[in-house]
């Protein structure tokens, strides 16, 4: 049984007014007309509403698990399995509170005949964590709309959106050898830059035979190229308070996006046999000098250790966006109040050593990362800045911040670093492929201007 709503109080007033006017003017038509509002009143009174028990609801969430910042489509289907029509059915899906709808609507209404379905489609932006959907609420009204019946129905299908940093880890490149190293050695071997020639040996690849020499001298010889070797790559995640911002309500923080990008990159590099290290700047870690630090390595547990640290960083950014927390108990890891980020940046340089490459993952919303890049330039190591864009282009202040960020990226580039601007809407695999694999295959290892992806 539903709840009744007073919709026709005005009809009572109209009936009284018409009756009064009819009596005053002695007009029988007006007196009769006073009965018309009462007919609507009666119509509303006899109209009843209920949500049929045979109503079925299903929900599909795709993809799940999803990476942070990824659009997730939700499709809710309500089917009237009863034998009668439902004249007015309104459905509101229970969207998780921490997520925001960016397209479509989680609300809809329809008149459903027997066997007909109503479908809601909307898109969410994923944020790290497990997000439970509330069951959809169904509300039915009779034809008179005076009675309202509400029911909550548990749907079939998905009831949770899982968002993980390591979700959907594709290879960095569909072709090539996934080498990230930009250093060449004096040892000859596979590569791109000419090194020398030697006598042909049985089994040498046909592609390395010097056919021009064979045409001149009639002897087979094999070309040696400067061999590419991989080096240790240290990812530095910027989790300082200035980076703990989002592009809008319900969207992931820049730290979360950076953690996601780092997870994918290190997973792919570890899979290719490279040594990968991790440093998280901006939180109080248990490593040397208070740094959250994992030295370069390629052991089997390197990835899980790194993901744990990245999860901690994203958690700290979400828990304490202003960076005023000193840790859960004042001394626990994850606090930020006692952290000196510039000292941590310098500590990374000391710990990584001169033979490592640096990949700084930061939104570059202040001058701190630029200063760090200028400091690391002293090592003459290959450096890359991967910068997720979380500035808003829809406001004047957002555009101003966007221009300042681009200027900082240009300053990083001026130090000799390669800069990659990860703009919203660009798939991460494409960004990473552009950031590492393409650069690795370039023979001269030079740095080119640009970087917007």
């Amino acid at each position, binding site marked *: 049984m539903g709840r009744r709503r*007073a*919709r026709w*109080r*005005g*009809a*009572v007033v*109209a*009936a*009284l*007014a*018409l*009756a009064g*006017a*009819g*009596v005053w*003017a*002695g*007009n*029988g*038509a*007006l*007196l*009769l*007309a*006073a*009965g*018309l*509002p*009462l*007919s*609507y*009143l*009666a*119509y*509303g009174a006899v109209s009843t509403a209920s949500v049929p028990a045979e109503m079925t609801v299903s929900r599909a969430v795709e993809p799940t698990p999803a990476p942070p910042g990824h659009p997730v489509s939700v499709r809710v289907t309500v089917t009237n399995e009863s034998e009668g029509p439902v*004249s*007015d059915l*309104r459905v*509101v*899906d229970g*969207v998780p*509170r*921490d*997520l*925001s*709808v*960016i397209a*479509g*609507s*989680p*609300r*809809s*209404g*329809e*008149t459903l005949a027997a066997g007909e379905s109503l479908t809601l489609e909307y898109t969410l932006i994923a944020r790290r964590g497990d997000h439970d959907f509330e069951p959809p609420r169904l*509300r039915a009204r009779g*034809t*008179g*709309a005076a009675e309202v019946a509400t029911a909550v129905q548990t749907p079939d299908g998905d009831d949770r959106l899982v968002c993980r940093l390591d979700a959907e880890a594709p290879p960095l490149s569909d072709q090539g050898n996934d080498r990230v190293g930009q250093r060449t050695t004096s040892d000859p071997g596979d590569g791109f830059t000419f090194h020398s020639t030697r006598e042909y040996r049985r089994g040498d690849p046909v592609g390395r035979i010097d056919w021009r020499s064979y045409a001149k001298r009639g002897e087979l010889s094999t070309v040696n190229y400067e061999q590419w070797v991989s080096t240790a790559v240290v990812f530095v995640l910027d989790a300082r308070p200035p980076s703990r911002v989002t592009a809008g*309500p319900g969207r992931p923080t820049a730290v979360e996006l950076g953690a996601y990008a780092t997870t994918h990159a290190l997973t792919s590099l570890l899979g290719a046999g490279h040594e990968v290290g991790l440093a998280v700047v901006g939180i109080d870690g248990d490593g040397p000098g208070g740094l959250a630090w994992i030295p370069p390595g390629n052991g089997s547990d390197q990835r899980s250790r790194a993901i744990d640290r990245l999860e901690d960083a994203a958690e700290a950014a979400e828990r304490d966006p202003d960076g005023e927390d000193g840790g859960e108990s004042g001394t626990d890891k994850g606090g930020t109040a006692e952290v000196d980020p510039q000292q941590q940046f310098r500590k990374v340089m000391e710990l990584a050593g001169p033979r490592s490459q640096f990949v700084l993952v930061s939104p570059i919303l202040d001058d701190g990362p630029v200063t760090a890049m200028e400091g690391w330039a002293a090592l003459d190591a290959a450096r890359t800045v991967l910068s997720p864009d979380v500035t808003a282009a829809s406001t004047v202040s957002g555009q101003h911040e966007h221009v300042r960020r681009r200027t900082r990226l240009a300053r990083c580039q001026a130090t000799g670093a390669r800069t990659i601007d990860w703009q919203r809407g660009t798939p991460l695999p494409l960004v990473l492929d552009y950031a590492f694999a393409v650069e690795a295959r370039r023979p001269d290892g030079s740095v080119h201007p640009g970087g917007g992806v």
Partner: protein
Amino acid sequence: MVGGPRLDTPSAVGDEGRPRATSLTIAALVVAAFGLATGVLRGDPQLFSGVALLAGVSVAGMTLLDRESLGPTVIGHLCFLPAASGVLATLVLSPVETALMGGVVLAMVGVATGWTNVLGTETVASTTVSSALSYLFAVVGIIVLVLAAGIAWVCWRLLTAVVGATSPVAAALGLSALVCVSAICLFLALWQLPVLQLTARSRRAERAATYARCKRVLGAVGLGAGVLTVLTPFVVVFTPLDRVLAAPPFGAVAGLLSSWLVLGPIAAVTVGALLAATGAFVLRTFTTEFDHSSVRAVGAVVAALGYLLLLAPVLLRLSIVSANPGAVFAGAVLLPLAVYLVLVLALGALKLGLLPERAAPAALTAAGLIYASIGAAQADLPALLVFGGVAGGLVTWDVGTYGLGLTAELGHRPETRRLELYHGVFAVGVGVLGILLFGAVELARQSVGTAVGSSGAMAVAVLGVLLLLAPLRG
């Protein structure tokens, strides 16, 4: 923080969004059908076309007055006040019964305000203040214009008197007075015009010094001419100056000084300087710190000028054609006050809750149709039209409030046209059934005669039904 799953934004169909469009379409069709049927039954299908146009323009003006930019605000003023005054004039002057005409106008205004979503406390208050401001400026403008015309006429008479003067003393007196006024006007113009601001920064200091010298010279000339003007009568009384000036060489000079050749250019410079100073002052006053309140003030001033320029010829024509020009003028001045009275009453109704804040357009439309039905009954129009008007009012209330509730629950993004049309079909169906049923009863009542179907008996019957249905209370 996330505010919730609903991220709706207002659409072009007002804040309430698309679901209202369907309900408002049904309401508009009902009102149009009632107006057309009434016109046909009275022998003039276009009976309400004129007042419908005026009502629509006045609501459009009300909507534009809610905008923040200057252009729409001015157009809103020019649409609202004349059209709303026209609606009231039509109500007063139309041969149609006041209840019938008033009800149809109310229904039309209800539908139009529903489309534009402007029948709220804030909008009505803002419209009242803005429009009253423009009316005030127009009235003050008329007074200022009359005063300026009087002063100009006096000055012109003085100037022509000086030009035609035969006395050398009078010529000298007129010339000195004119020079004094001219110097003052030029001083004012130099003071108000943004000459220095428009000068290149590199030459600004030099130009400032030049203008300071000019101001000193103008001040000295004005002071000297003024002193001369004041002293000349005394000099003439106590010295034989008039006889000296009448002598042959001075007489010719005095004649030259009192000619148009000398006085005309000085008078032209005086008028030009006065206009420039006044224009610069007005522009500076109304454009300094141009914000929302400035837009309202400037819009009201421009609209007041518009009233005078655009409506004056119409009113003059009406005055000439009309047998009683005074009544036309009084109507033009007083009708806006009646418009403001109506707006204040509407504001009071909104404040007191007589008109529900969100459903005010639907309530106004329904009330208008029922009021028009009473008027139709008083005009002895067929009972079916009366029943149709009442049913139409109930249908507009039903679909209007249904659409509002739909929007409140679902926002404006979901497509709900089918849902609302389904409800609308039932609402109209109940109305049609009611019309047929009560039409049959009316027919039976008339055929039976007064013994059973008398008004007293009907009143008792209706009272009984009301008492029976009272526990439902809507």
